């Protein structure tokens, strides 16, 4: 990620969502033509991008927001729950890939895509703008910390 000066949290994390989506599609496209070697490589890249994205949110952004907004049981709680669901699906996808089970993988990836995209929409439409608002003062440090992940 290049430095983008005074980007917003919304912008920064939405861009990262797009990057994850691209990697998702690359892995799925490879599975759909049974190119298992490249599928494994793309899936690994996708998995790492997702883990990093979750870590940026759960370790940096959410705690900062929870401290500021005092809403540990609110939106971030639901988002963490959906991260867990996605991690579950990612594990199952990795297993399907290992067994080279095309149908199983595509069934799971369809489900993950829906879960992931509706999750991203909620974050981009509602949660990130809330964090941009609540954390305006600490934004540069937070973005710096997330970039360093």
């Amino acid at each position, binding site marked *: 990620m290049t430095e983008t000066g005074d980007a917003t949290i919304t912008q920064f994390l939405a861009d990262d969502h797009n990057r994850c*989506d*691209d990697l*998702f*599609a*690359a892995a*799925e*496209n490879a599975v*759909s033509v049974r190119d298992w070697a490249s599928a494994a490589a793309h899936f690994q890249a996708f998995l790492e991008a997702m883990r990093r994205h979750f870590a940026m949110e759960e370790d940096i952004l959410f705690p900062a927001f929870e401290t500021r907004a005092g809403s540990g049981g*609110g*939106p971030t*709680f*639901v*988002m963490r729950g*959906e991260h867990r*669901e996605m991690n579950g699906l990612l594990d199952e996808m990795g297993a399907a890939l290992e067994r080279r089970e095309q*149908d*199983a993988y*595509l*069934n*799971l990836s*369809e*489900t993950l*895509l*829906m*879960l992931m*995209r*509706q*999750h991203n*929409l*909620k974050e981009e*439409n*509602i*949660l990130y703008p809330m964090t941009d608002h609540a954390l305006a003062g600490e934004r540069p440090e937070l973005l710096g910390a997330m970039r360093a992940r």
Partner: protein
Amino acid sequence: MIGAGLAPEQGPPFTAPLRFFLTAPWFLVAAGLLAAFDPGWTEGPLSPTALALTHLLTLGFLGMVMLGALTQMLPVLAGAPMPGIRPVATIGHASLTLGTPLLAWGLWRGEPAALLHGAGLLWLGLAPLLISAGLALADARRLDSVHAMRVAFVALLATLALGLGLAGWLADALPAGWRPDDPFIWLRAHALAGLAGWVAILVVGVAWQVVPMLQVTPAYPAWATRPLLVVLTSAVGVALLAPAPWRVVGEIALALGLAAFALVTLDLQRRRKRKLASPTLDLWRLGMLGLIGAVALFALPLPGEPARLAGGVLFLVGFAASVVIGMVDKIVPFLAWFHLRAGPGTSAGALPGMKDFLSDAAARGQARLHLVALVCLVAAPFAPALAVPGGLLLAAAGAVAGWNLARAARLYARHRR
């Protein structure tokens, strides 16, 4: 846009949208059977059969799905839960299910009592749902899609009000001061507000979210979001309200705006990152081609009733029904999976994936029937003999859609226990 809201309690219960989605396809079946058994609709858009078919499709199928989808999308996409969702959805669903056939029967058979009772039932039963949706829309997030939903919502209210007025006029039940000098003005406004203001603008607003979502396409270019909404909304406004010579300007702007939307959507889909074949993608592409065809048939100075009728078929069956089926084929399996996953006591073990709820093969079979039905029905105004196969195929496509979705719901129920 689907799933739980941001707060755990925001997502509506699965039954709220589901009952709408499960019922809607059977109105396609009803429309198909009527189109086959009374091919009189091919005579023109204002024939009694055509009027009945229009409402089986617009209220029974499209309205049913779109209102059901709103109960899901408003809380989740826009962060605006609908107050009293359970009773409001139950009553609204019941009134659409009972009122629509009554209205259609009244229009078909020219029965004033059925017409009035149908219209009245629809109004009474939809009122709580509309109030609840209106309240949710009022304090929803300021997103482009929400603005589109607001415009569509206002257009729906206008459509329903004019529909009630038209039913009153046809049944000769309007109080003296209320009778229109020229009911055709009401009819035109009712049809325009319903088709362009409600159906088309709602699809545009939803497409901004779901087209990039389903196929991993680039986002809509900036001009095709809020500026396009402003153009479409002003165009409908001018076409409805401006002095007569200016209305055609609104109609032309509307046609160009909708065609531009269809073209940019097709272009985004061509540039999609996800290469997997998908019946939903095919249905959306068919829908966009249907929209372009409908706009062309309405806008070009083609002679005669058959062209207008074919335009109406392209709009309702080719455009709106195609994209709506494509959506429901994704939403129902996802929500089934989502609610199973989130529900108590069902977290462990291998749950069905989305494609176990509704396989690509099942969705594709349905989409093919829909396509063949569409081809016959579009040609039927020019070759009325095609009304029979076209109607039967539409009924079959609706039955397969209804069966596919019911099967998904049954699988959900089985795992729930």
